[in-house]
């Protein structure tokens, strides 16, 4: 029910408002039990710490049960005016308290270590999953939401585990011990006290189903909020340019209000667990007292047993109360864990293949390739193309004709629907994905640089490269001088979009690709923001670098591709013309048309 509501809510939109964000991300209801079991699984590899912790908890529980007994002994001896025995009792007490404190210390220490180890591993596992997710998944999900799972959701788990693990242990231990003692003393009365347990379970069940949907909703909304901030801060320049701040703020506020509402409901429900449990405990206590009295009158049990029972009934209440106090926290953690596991359960990118292409010549063949991003909307139809080794091949065509798609497929970012792509006659599906990518360098339309030094950004493609090689690559891509002009040269840290123009960023990405010394180089509109003279210099430098290497260049600017060995003209996912510049001009087809509009058409 709750899920259904959520779904209809996230598809709700006002006319003129921004649409629903992450509409693919309606959370599926996942069984809480399974999630908890899986969470417990994370502890199984820390078996030693867990066992030690259990042992310590036992010790602490024993000490805290024994200490009151000693106290009453001490008071008894005071009442009996037996002051000689007192010092001995007090010294024992001191020892027990010492053990208890030491135990508490070890307990919080071990649970801290345990929880942080588990959290560390969980984050690493999650990150491992994220970097190994198919590109498709990342492309179609809100980045901020994925980030929120990493920080907020995992942190909730961390807090819960570190704060409530030992309470949970000792609580369960106490309950079991008490129940055992009660059953031993008087089974019928013990069964009666189980009404408390039943009531507790019923209340928990009632509250928790309502609670869980609110907690889940809260985490989803927090993820959405993260998404808004991430997207708007990343695209801040556009937000400012269009004075969209108010609208963006309004959207943020809307999510924020929803989050607040969900949070208030979740927390109120979570917070009522304590008082409700208190009531149940006391009802249980009254029941025991009443029936105990009745049994006593009828001589079923002795007075001593009743008084013991009453002590136990009180003891029974404490751990249940404690667990109730942290129940909300546990729910948050479970909701968070669900979201974390949801990503972990996404199928990973298929990286299978065992062939290597270290000695490949670089013959690329596309055979009857069909591909669609969305089912039913084919982007490439029966695409056939052979690129000879060492050739410089260019793809041209109107925007949206499928050029970038070819790159996505060659890099195995997306999988083809049918047909095959071969390198030196080997299907790329059979080539080890890692090896394939190591031997192929790409420069993309949207440049990606990391908030790190220029040096580390360039060496990203080949860590072990020497500074000399790096500078060489930078010179080839015409950015060496530009880098030297930066405040700290190669050690300047790139932060944000800031002071570097798109063209300069492209030059850096090209240098990075050059440094990789790949078998196959792909430039996808890599110089679109670079001026033509600089581009020309880069191309001249490339000639030597790409000797005996295959390069694939995508560009609109014909000057970028004129001297390619082979030009492929694409239109709507099909190849319509091929040949070199002169041949294509002679054909007077589409390429000729393009050429005319770009150059001579208007008789410059």
């Amino acid at each position: 029910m709750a899920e259904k509501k959520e779904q209809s809510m996230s598809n709700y939109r006002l006319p003129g408002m921004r649409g629903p964000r992450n509409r693919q991300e309606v959370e599926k209801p996942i069984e809480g039990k399974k999630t908890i079991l899986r969470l417990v699984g994370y502890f199984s590899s820390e078996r030693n710490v867990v066992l030690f912790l259990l042992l310590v908890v036992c010790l602490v529980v024993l000490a805290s049960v024994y200490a009151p007994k000693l106290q009453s002994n001490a008071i008894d001896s005071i009442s009996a005016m037996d002051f000689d025995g007192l010092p001995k009792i007090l010294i024992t007490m001191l020892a027990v308290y010492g053990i208890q404190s030491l135990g508490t210390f070890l307990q919080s220490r071990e649970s801290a270590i345990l929880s942080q180890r588990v959290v560390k591993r969980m984050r690493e596992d999650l990150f491992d999953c994220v970097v190994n997710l198919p590109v498709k998944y990342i492309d179609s999900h809100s980045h901020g939401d994925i980030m929120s799972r990493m920080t907020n959701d995992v942190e909730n788990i961390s807090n819960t585990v570190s704060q409530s693990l030992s309470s949970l242990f000792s609580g369960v231990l106490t309950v079991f011990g008490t129940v055992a003692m009660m059953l031993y003393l008087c089974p019928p009365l013990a069964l009666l006290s189980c009404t408390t347990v039943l009531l507790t379970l019923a209340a928990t069940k009632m509250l928790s189903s309502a609670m869980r949907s609110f907690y889940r909703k809260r985490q989803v909304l927090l993820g959405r909020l993260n998404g808004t901030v991430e997207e708007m801060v990343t695209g801040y320049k556009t937000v400012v340019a269009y004075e969209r701040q108010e609208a963006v703020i309004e959207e943020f506020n809307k999510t924020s209000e929803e989050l607040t509402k969900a949070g208030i409901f979740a927390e109120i429900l979570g917070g009522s667990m304590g008082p409700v449990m208190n009531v149940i405990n006391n009802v249980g206590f009254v029941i025991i007292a009443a029936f105990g009295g009745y049994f006593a009158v009828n001589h079923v049990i002795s007075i001593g047993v009743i008084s013991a029972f009453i002590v136990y009934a009180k003891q029974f209440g404490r751990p249940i109360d404690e667990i109730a106090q942290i129940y909300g926290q546990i729910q948050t953690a479970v909701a968070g864990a669900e979201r974390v596991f949801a990503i972990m359960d996404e199928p990973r990118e298929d990286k299978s293949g065992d062939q290597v292409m270290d000695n490949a010549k670089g013959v690329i063949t596309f055979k009857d390739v069909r591909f669609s991003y969305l089912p039913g909307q084919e982007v490439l139809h029966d695409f056939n193309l052979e690129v000879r080794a060492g050739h410089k091949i260019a793809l041209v065509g109107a925007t949206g004709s499928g050029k970038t798609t070819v790159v996505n497929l060659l890099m195995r970012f997306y999988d083809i629907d049918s047909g095959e792509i071969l390198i030196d006659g080997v299907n790329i599906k059979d080539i080890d994905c890692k090896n394939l990518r190591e031997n192929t360098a790409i420069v993309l339309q949207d440049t990606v640089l990391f908030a790190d030094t220029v040096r580390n950004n360039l060496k990203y493609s080949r860590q072990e490269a020497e500074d000399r090689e790096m500078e060489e690559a930078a010179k080839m891509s015409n950015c060496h001088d530009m880098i030297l002009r930066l405040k700290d040269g190669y050690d300047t840290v790139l932060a944000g979009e800031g002071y570097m123009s798109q063209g300069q960023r492209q030059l850096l990405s090209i240098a990075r690709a050059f440094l990789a010394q790949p078998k196959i180089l792909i430039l996808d509109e890599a110089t679109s923001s670079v001026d033509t003279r600089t581009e020309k210099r880069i191309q001249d430098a490339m000639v030597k670098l790409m000797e005996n290497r295959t390069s694939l260049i995508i560009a609109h600017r014909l000057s970028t591709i004129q001297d390619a060995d082979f030009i492929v003209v694409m239109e709507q996912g099909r190849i319509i013309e091929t040949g070199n510049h002169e041949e294509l001009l002679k054909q007077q087809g589409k390429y000729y048309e393009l050429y005319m509009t770009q150059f001579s058409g208007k008789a410059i």
Partner: protein
Amino acid sequence: MLKYLKKYWVYFLLAPLFMVGEVSMDLLQPRLMAVIVDEGVLGLSHGGAGDLGLVIRTGFQMVGLVLFGCFCGIMSGVFANLCSQKYGNDIRKDAFRKVMSFSLEQTDRFSTGSLITRVTNDITQVQNLLSQCIRGFVRTFLLFAGGILCMLTLNLSFGMVVACALPLILICVVFFIAKANPMFGILQEKLDKVNNVMQENVSGIRVVKAYVKEEYEKERFGAANGELVGTQLDVLLLFSYMTPIMNIILNVSVIAVIKVGALQVGNGTVTPGDVMAAVTYISQILNAVMRMTMIFQTVSRGVASGKRIKEVLVCEPSIQGGSFEGETKEKGKVEFKNVSFSYPGMGTEKVLDTINLTIHPGETFGILGSTGCGKSSLVNLIPRFYDVTEGSVLVDDVDVRDYTLNALRKKVAAALQKSEIFSASIRENIAWGDEAASEERIRQAASLAQAAEFIDSKAEGMDTWVTQGGHSLSGGQKQRLAIARAVLKNAEILIFDDTTSALDLKTEAALYEALRKEYAGVTKIIIAQRIASVKDADRIAVIENGRIMACGSHEELMENSGIYRDIYDSQLKR
């Protein structure tokens, strides 16, 4: 940040009040329990004869009392949550509003990851702080103070013990808080780092994969995560000393009370019952103290987070508008007067050097120049993405710094180099600059930007959903959406910062043709790489190393400017 509480003072007062109710019920309940046990069941004063009727009567009384306590507890929770979450909500909204008023350079300085943490996680910490303060702290303090008070009323000699123990506890608390406080600040910083690494990886996933850097990134993330977890562990370990130390202090007090009690009982000044009561109160105080340590953790963390939020809240936008509302006679005139510019924090390296230039209303003005020569920086100064270092920029004869930001940016529509696409429908992406735009105008803008055709070819047309970063669109399609967005804005000055680079020339030519026809009166500033993109412009400026080297029509430049001819040659002659 206290002022945010003002609005919720009723909740802020009601929550502790109800808490007092709950705690009082908690304190009363043991007495009734004692009556039930001692009189009802055990029948202590009737020689062992229990009284079932009394048990049931008192039982009902107790359940009633507890129900009332339950009601108070829930109400206290309701008000505490209303207060803290609404408080957090207000701060969150204000913090985000502040972020949205920052200049570009300021958002870069904070970094995306850190801003996200501050607006989400840090706020949660502050919320927790507040709700802990009004509920947990009040409850614990009541139990603590009640316990001490009751003990003092028992016998003053027990008070001596308390008087000795309390300062020790106080010292202990102060010591741990002083130690923990800076650690929580560090903790949030480490969280920023994790967020940043995560963000880079998610948005740069293609590059990570293309260079097979998964393992490297895992290591980088592992390091950031390791630091975060390490700091968290340090905090937890620090607090793991706190509870046992406090325990010891209080437990020794218990022993001292018994010892003192024994002496007093010997003297006949107190009864054994009093000693028992004193011990019970001390355990109550002990419980309170244990809870207090948990609360201190939340509070310290909340305080550290509060500081970070405050940094955002007090940070004044470095670019602020003037007071001029933008009513001018001229419409669409841009003038650069002795403009020099270097990026904040990047030293004295001049990106623009003494630029003097006037662009007239209705003019189509082209800008050419090599990568990094300062083309984008020049147009960035017009809508005040950055401010000049020297000189001034005038729009319609008024200094841009005199306009209100809103008025200035209304006059300027810029399609940026990086065509930012937001996760929304195509329609919403185009109407980004004018939410109220009619369907007709959106269509018009789309067809002018030559985007209508590809939009119509999509199954859902204008309603087609595009994902963040527009990965479902090609580069040229993204640019055309960005152009449509700019055109729709109906501004006096239209800036295309290299936004036609991914368009084929035919499309580009059609676009400029349409612009010339329908936006004749609008000043058009076009940065481009291709001569063909700008050759029909009224004037073209050639920029090199931050200076205007030449300015004139295509024909004039072909005649007079070596650089221009050079660029021309690089694009044509083979």
